[in-house]
């Protein structure tokens, strides 16, 4: 390790990276179980029928919230603790503050889960965190923004690296978005005007929180793993500023053909097609970066996870620019097509990136080689195939449901048509859960396994193997 690399390594609060990764994986376990349990309701085989505190409607909200705010947010925070000090050459603002944010965030998650199961959910999609917890979340988000942006500010008026553009904007957006989405429709704007704001919130949560933090991490990890720079800086600029301009304008597309004024709906459709074109440039940038190093996908599992996610991202974008059209919406809206899309984006893209980053960091954090590379390979294939099957299955189910509804078949017919798809979805979910169980076991055995004297180098070799 060079002097500079060692210096950068000293700036990183490794204990916090570990803590957030562990918390993220714990949330993943709960979230996957909740999702699988909920899916069994659809095949009339629910695990806890008639139990109020484990009612499917409530478990569904735990599934989405714990995965968004527990799995994705925790894992991304771990990534930020690793990446920001390395890029800026400065530590985050404060170690005690970092630990405070960590515990506050886990307390928020626990309170959210308990609150939802106890019947205190807020009626805002992706924001079901009980209303009395929201102020704590806002404070937590502001503290996180201050903690992470302090080193960026301190590094002076120099141009900042691509990753930091995404982190900076993402942290600012998330505070604003959380405030807007949780308070405006709840207290100020009812009905159609409230729905316009909710649409913005739902979409900004994906587009202005998860997406920018995810891309920011990739702009660091991909060049580091491949040991070469990103293909084009100019294309990076187009990708970031295009996302910043178009993405916030997308929101109302979650309520097309609704009583929201049509000009807002048309605007959202146009902006959505715009954002898909712009983010495709980011895809091109990463594929072009890979050019000449494609063989690394075979031997380097972290990179394979990341690029599988990138390919899923392109599929999502193409799908999205079609499904947002008002004509297509007539059929697919309200159906499982949208559910498939959501799983492809949130899990197939961002979840996969998180697996790649975790795989890259874990041996270094514990300075131990992987307990088993075979288990990691199994995890990859079970998860990748499970996700692919689930998304294709739900997309097909959506088309069947949409046409059955339009053709005025009795409602129950649309349910009966859906049973085989819902059965397949549960099986795919079990494959994903099985893969993750293998991964959890591997993580645990690795962390508790025997240390190796020349750990970092050995760990690196193991990852590359």
């Amino acid at each position, binding site marked *: 390790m060079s002097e500079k690399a060692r210096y950068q390594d000293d700036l990183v609060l490794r204990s916090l990276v570990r803590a957030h990764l562990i918390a993220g994986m714990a949330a993943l376990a709960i979230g996957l179980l909740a999702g699988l349990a909920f899916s069994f309701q659809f095949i009339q085989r629910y695990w806890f029928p008639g139990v109020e505190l484990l009612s499917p409607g409530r478990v569904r909200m735990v599934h989405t919230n714990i995965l968004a705010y527990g799995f994705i947010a925790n894992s991304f925070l771990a990534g930020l603790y690793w990446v920001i000090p390395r890029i800026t050459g400065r530590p985050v603002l404060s170690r005690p503050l970092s630990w405070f944010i960590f515990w506050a965030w886990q307390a928020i998650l626990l309170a959210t889960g308990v609150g939802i199961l106890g019947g*205190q959910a807020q009626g805002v999609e992706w924001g079901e965190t009980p209303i009395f917890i929201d102020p704590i979340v806002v404070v937590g988000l502001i503290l996180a923004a201050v903690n992470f942006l302090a080193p960026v500010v301190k590094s002076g008026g120099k141009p900042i690296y691509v990753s930091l553009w995404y982190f900076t904007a993402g942290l600012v957006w998330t505070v604003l978005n959380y405030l807007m989405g949780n308070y405006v429709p709840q207290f100020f704007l009812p009905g*159609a005007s409230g729905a316009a704001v909710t649409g913005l919130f739902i979409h900004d949560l994906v587009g202005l929180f998860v997406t920018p933090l995810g891309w920011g991490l990739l702009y660091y990890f991909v060049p580091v793993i491949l040991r070469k720079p990103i293909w084009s800086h100019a294309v990076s600029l187009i990708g970031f500023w295009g996302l910043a301009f178009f993405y916030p304008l997308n929101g109302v597309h979650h309520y097309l053909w*609704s009583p929201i004024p049509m000009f807002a709906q048309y605007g959202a459709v146009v902006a959505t097609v715009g954002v898909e074109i712009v983010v495709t440039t980011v895809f091109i940038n990463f594929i072009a970066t890979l050019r000449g190093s494609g063989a690394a996908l075979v031997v380097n599992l972290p990179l394979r996870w990341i690029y599988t996610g990138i390919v899923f991202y392109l599929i999502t974008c193409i799908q999205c620019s079609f499904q947002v059209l008002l004509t297509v919406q007539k059929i697919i809206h309200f159906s499982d097509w949208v559910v498939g899309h959501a799983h492809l984006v949130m899990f197939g893209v961002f979840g996969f990136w998180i697996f790649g980053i975790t795989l890259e960091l874990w041996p270094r954090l514990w300075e131990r080689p992987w307990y088993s590379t075979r288990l990691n390979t199994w995890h990859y294939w079970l998860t990748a195939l499970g996700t692919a099957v689930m998304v294709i299955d739900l997309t097909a189910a959506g088309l069947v449901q949409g046409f059955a*509804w339009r053709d005025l078949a009795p*409602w*129950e017919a649309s*349910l009966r048509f859906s049973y085989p798809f*819902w059965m397949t979805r549960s099986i795919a979910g079990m494959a994903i859960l099985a893969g993750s169980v293998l991964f959890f076991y591997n993580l645990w055995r690795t962390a508790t396994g025997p240390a190796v004297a020349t750990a970092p180098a050995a760990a690196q070799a193991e990852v590359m193997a």
Partner: protein
Amino acid sequence: MNPLERFSAIVLIAGLAFFGLAAVVEAWLPWQTLRDLPMQSVEELAAEVTPDFLDLAQRYPEPFRRHFGEPTSAAFARALRRGRDVYIAEGCWHCHSQFVRPVSHEDRRFGAVSYPGEYQNELQLPQLFGTRRVGPDLIRSAGKHSNDWHLAHFWQPTTVVPSSVMPSFPWFFDPPAGEALPQPNDRGLAIITFVQWLGSWAEQPDAPLLLQTSAPAQETNP
């Protein structure tokens, strides 16, 4: 140096200005368009008690009196509020939407196409449009089924709709005493009141236009 790579530009232009622009175009402007619609409180909505609410009071007199007293408009308002809260807490809105679109023959299946004015009230804070239909849309559900049907449906949906994938909600009922049929508790009465109220204000098309949305009785669950 490219100004687009500066921290300040990213915070001010991307972080604040673009977010603000979107909030103006996609939230403030729609609100401006709709702001003159009169905002109704629950008390105003409940001024006229619906026949279904009176029917509940007659069918389940003992629990009704215990939880809501006489079927006055004040009791109706209380039941609507409670019903809306139950609707949110149980996540009903994740599998049932609350707007009829002007496409895909939805007006034939559910009833009149939705319009902004009917959502300008306190019970739509937060709005309950929904984004998924596992079960049918509910904004025109008033009077589609009887109170008894809803009661059986909440107790065990498959008893009235064999292929239903809706959960059962036994906690909407007091524990049945001996041989007696289960009686709805405050949550059960409130959620039925809320669902039977949805769309009670809208003009329904003539009966033949509306589609039979239940399957024939002889069809069974595969």
